[in-house]
């Protein structure tokens, strides 16, 4: 199908974009960046915004910046730019590696970091990364700038803490200060398809033992989830200990009630979760932290 009619605006500044969002509120306006989620939804007429505010001229929202102890990625940065970033591959390799799992290269060439975070599909890679790495999201609105933790940003299926007149400017991610390892695994029916369940693991190491573990899963429910019971099981263990991985995988199932959807039943997802927690931890301990991205 073809999309319904809408008014189109391509403002020249972030301030102008925010004013348009407020001024056009009667038209149910939507911000468009790469449009790789919004345009197909409009083609299928599942979304019918009366106005689109295209951020294409806002170059200040593009790019990957290194700060003292963190990295700031502009909301309009394309997934493929993250995937190809030599700086991120060296200093924060989990981010480009997971970004490379998003859809297909032509999707990653147009889709943006901020668009994916604000679309907030609970099976998507960026929401998982933001939760896994405790990212901070910087929102700009009529009353100024505020920073929201990833933990507080994702509220439900496709619902975030951003208000209707706020625009995501950037996401900030801090690598762990000491030695750390990561693993990621995604299960989908075909390469490039939406994940049914995906799991990321980041373990901080102190003297060869896990001093802090972070595990996040996509595809289980309304938001990306941290698996805190599993994280607690891992503290103090040898990162290569398969018994500890099994205990963590069992703990991950506690308190998790996956939603049944086209990807599979709740039981199926629980099985995927258990296997993928073990696999992500094994990958974190190995020299191959993820499968070849598609």
């Amino acid at each position, binding site marked *: 199908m*073809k999309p319904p009619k809408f008014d189109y605006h*391509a403002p020249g500044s972030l301030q102008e974009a925010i004013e348009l969002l407020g001024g056009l509120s009667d038209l149910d306006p939507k911000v468009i960046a790469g449009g790789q989620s919004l345009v*197909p939804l409009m083609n*299928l007429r599942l979304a019918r915004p009366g106005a689109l505010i295209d951020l294409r001229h806002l170059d200040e929202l593009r790019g990957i910046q290194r700060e003292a102890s963190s990295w700031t990625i502009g909301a309009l940065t394309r997934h493929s730019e993250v995937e190809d970033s030599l700086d991120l591959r060296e200093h924060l390799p989990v981010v480009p590696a997971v970004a490379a799992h998003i859809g297909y*290269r*032509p999707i990653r060439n147009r889709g943006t970091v901020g668009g994916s975070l604000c679309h907030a599909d609970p099976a998507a890679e960026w929401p998982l990364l933001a939760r896994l790495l405790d990212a901070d999201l910087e929102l700009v609105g009529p009353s100024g700038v505020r920073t929201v933790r990833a933990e507080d940003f994702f509220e439900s299926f496709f619902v975030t803490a951003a208000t209707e007149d706020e625009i995501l400017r950037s996401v900030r991610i801090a690598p762990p200060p000491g030695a750390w390892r990561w693993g990621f695994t995604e299960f989908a029916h*075909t390469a*490039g398809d939406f994940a049914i369940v995906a799991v990321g693991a980041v373990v901080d190491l102190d003297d060869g033992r896990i001093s802090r573990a972070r595990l996040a899963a996509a595809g289980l429910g309304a938001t990306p989830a941290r698996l805190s019971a599993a994280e607690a099981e891992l503290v103090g263990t040898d990162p290569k200990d398969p018994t500890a991985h099994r205990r963590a995988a069992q703990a991950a199932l506690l308190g998790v009630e996956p939603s049944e959807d086209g990807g599979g039943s709740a039981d199926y997802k629980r099985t995927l979760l258990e296997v993928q927690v073990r696999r992500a931890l094994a990958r974190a301990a190995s020299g191959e932290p993820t499968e070849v991205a598609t």
Partner: protein
Amino acid sequence: MSSDRRPLSLTVNGTSLKVEVEPRRLLCDVLRHDLGLTGTHVGCEHGVCGACTVLVDGRAERSCMTFAVQAEGCGIETVEGLAGGPGALSPLQAAFQEHHGLQCGFCTPGILMTARDLLARNPSPSEPEIRQALTGSICRCTGYQSIVAAIAAAASELGEAG
């Protein structure tokens, strides 16, 4: 309806063009219907099949998932721009002919543009890398083996040509 139209400038296969389009007009439809470049095919219209893939400022993108107004001022390359002229084939196209990399041809324009993006970034891709690049393109005729062979052969020939 005409009052909704706005002027749009694009450079398509090296030629600067101006058209008037509604904001809701998809890039693929501007190429096909307004510019008559019907080599770009439209399959699923939601990004899964890859038939509509074109290069936008040198990057492979889905022309069915872009409003043409978003591409204002951009350089677009379609399958019509691959070869030097009528009847000619680029080395990539010639490799598809030589290795039977197509049957019905519906997916072929999108796959050619996807392969062009791959070879521009990675002039000598491994077979797994070629297969990865093809995950976003659906072909119902060939079983993909001959497409993989064609892209590998083109990479080899282009590499030798230096």
